């Protein structure tokens, strides 16, 4: 997930500052009525990605997004018939609508990518807990993240274990589908729930829940960079608001 080896200014920011940035950015681009703010934001995030040495072309699902973007623009262009005609059936409003939506999506997706690539999930959970998230929900997040690879291996094992008992999973057609749902999902869930149970015992068995709060082995430090980033966010929102008022 996170590229811990690489460190940049963005990597070193406090996780909460980055989270607030991500949310603030998302809300701002979705509130902006025009296409300018989303596209400018997307450009800005692209620059940041480059600074943080996260190659933007490695974006997950890039192909999917490109197709989707084309489809969205097409739908808008085809079905919005107001405003000035630009070319043949294409109207300005339709084009603008399409660009606005794709710009928004692009900005949010790129910013999320930047966030994920530069934030350590444990630090994020810890920062959230320090900021008042009840500890059990903080650990719910940590646990869920930790279990993803564990359960993936587990799912694979269950599948193979049944295959070798003669379960025709390697068959074709509806039969396979039905078998997978009935025979595979159940043992996987049984095993997952037993893990949850054993884990609850193991955690309480080490004093989890003794106090409503906890201490933390390591500090997530706040730096001057965080203050700057927070100030930049306020300026960004103000600028977007200004652009929205004065055409854009």
């Amino acid at each position, binding site marked *: 997930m996170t590229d811990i080896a690489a460190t940049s200014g963005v990597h070193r920011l406090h996780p909460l500052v980055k989270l607030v940035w991500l949310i603030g950015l998302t809300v701002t681009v979705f509130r902006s009525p025009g296409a300018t703010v989303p596209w400018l934001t997307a450009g800005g995030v692209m620059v940041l990605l480059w600074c943080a040495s996260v190659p933007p072309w490695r974006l997950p699902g890039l192909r999917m997004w490109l197709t989707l973007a084309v489809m969205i623009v097409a739908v808008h262009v085809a079905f919005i018939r107001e405003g000035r005609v630009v070319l043949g059936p294409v109207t300005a409003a339709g084009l603008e609508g399409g660009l606005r939506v794709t710009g928004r999506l692009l900005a949010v997706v790129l910013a999320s990518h930047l966030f994920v690539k530069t934030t350590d999930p*444990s630090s994020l959970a810890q920062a959230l807990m320090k900021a008042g998230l009840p500890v059990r929900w903080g650990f719910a997040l*940590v646990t869920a993240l930790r279990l993803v690879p564990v359960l993936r291996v587990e799912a694979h094992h269950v599948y193979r274990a049944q295959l070798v008992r003669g379960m025709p999973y390697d*068959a074709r057609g509806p039969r396979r589908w039905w078998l997978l749902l009935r025979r595979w999902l159940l043992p996987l869930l049984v095993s997952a729930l037993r893990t949850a149970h*054993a884990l609850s015992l193991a955690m309480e068995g080490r004093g989890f829940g*003794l106090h409503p709060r906890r201490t933390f082995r390591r500090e997530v430090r706040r730096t001057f960079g965080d203050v700057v980033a927070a100030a930049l966010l306020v300026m960004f929102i103000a600028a977007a608001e200004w652009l929205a008022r004065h055409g854009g």
Partner: protein
Amino acid sequence: MIRCEQFGWRYAGASAPAVRDVTLEIGRGEFVVVVGPSGSGKTTLALAMCGLLIGRQGGQPCGTIRIDRRDVAATPLPELAQLIGLVQQNPQAQFATLNVTDELAFGLENRCRPPDEIHQSSAVAADQMAIAALLGRSLATLSGGEQQRVAVASLLACRPAALVLDEPTASLDPQTAGELFRSLANLARETGLTVVIIEHKLAQLLPLRPRLIGLDEGRVVLDQPAGDSAAPLLLRLTGPSPREVSTPAFADAPGELLVDVAHATVGADGRPILDDVSLQVRAGEVIAVLGPNGSGKTTLLHGLMGLVAPQAGSIHVAGLSVSARAVSRRARAVGLVFQNADHQLVAETVWDEVLFACRTQGRPDGDAEREAAALLDAAGLAARRGDHPHRLSWGQKRRLNLISVLLHKPRVLLLDEPFAGQDWENARFLLRAIGDIVNGSPTRPRGACLIVTHDPRVVRHGCTRVVFMTQGRVELDAPVPDAFALLRSRGHAAYVETGAAG
């Protein structure tokens, strides 16, 4: 320290109590080993001692258990955690964080200790379990043995007064298991920690002079101080006396070639897991596959089943290349038992589970049912036919796994640690059933079997040949009597010590 008075427990929906009339007192700094046949209530007792049963599982308790004069039933679990800790069998299921350092700090963070103290206690615990080199590693990348050590250390860091371990070494190689036992015995002696271990590996534990507590059918039938002579229960558990015939009756010389692995290489993530492995197995042979954790034993069996394909070399089983046919079609001729008991359980009752493979392969039900009933009976599971397989004890599940593969008589059996957690009575029954397939019958040709095991008794009494693997290679391939001497001389004595009765 730990005091049980007339303690008993019956699981919801069970006909008989799993544990009854247990009266025990365990003092501070004692090193206790709990033994007993599979299903005798060891796990149940351990859970109860740590306060994980009463009020947390459906069932009916009687009597009391006190830890340091506090009734476990009346004490909230997080408070009890300051007195007693439980290491469960599966370390993966008890990690709460993402890396080793966080894991060691977890218990102390829960108690709101200051960071300095957390650092210091974690460092001490890491030292005690010899895992200082692992600090900072991601938990997902550790081997089974390393995970088990981290699990123990993370409890030690909380400095409980007592530690209970439920078969902590079931999937560890004998070398690693022995080291873990010695660390624990030292801790008990030097720091006054009370240690209660549930184990079947007595060969390695007895030299550490533990107090032995024996359970049978939920009752305490043995309680003797360290170093006493072997009681009848122990003999039943630890295996045959030296006088018992030591080579199994495998009739003739090896017959037709059933497994042929030629220069097979299997890799993952650019690293070889099996490295140029060659192996031939003929009808009538039972091969013991031994080796340290992570040496590629499981991968070898999966390769033979066709679950992983070799990148180089070839694998033929029963005359066919493994990639030639769909795995589910090959299940008729080749039976595989997985390392994890839970993965293979598919049906909703023990009975359906046993008959499952026969039904997917359309074998006539009448014969199969009669035979299934006989096998279940011999495995001590006859009374549990209608129960859900997940309600069985660990060893019982393991037997169920094996029976459910034996029933349709595959020609080649691949068994991944089927004997972990089995007492000798059951192990012997399983060995007989395997022998039945290998020896064939007038209507059925002889078969072959590969068993991954860490249990020297099984190797001595049930196998004809040993294949010892290290780091993805076959280091040694020799008939049983010679193999033992060779392994000893090459510094792998832990794999062949049969202990007390061996």
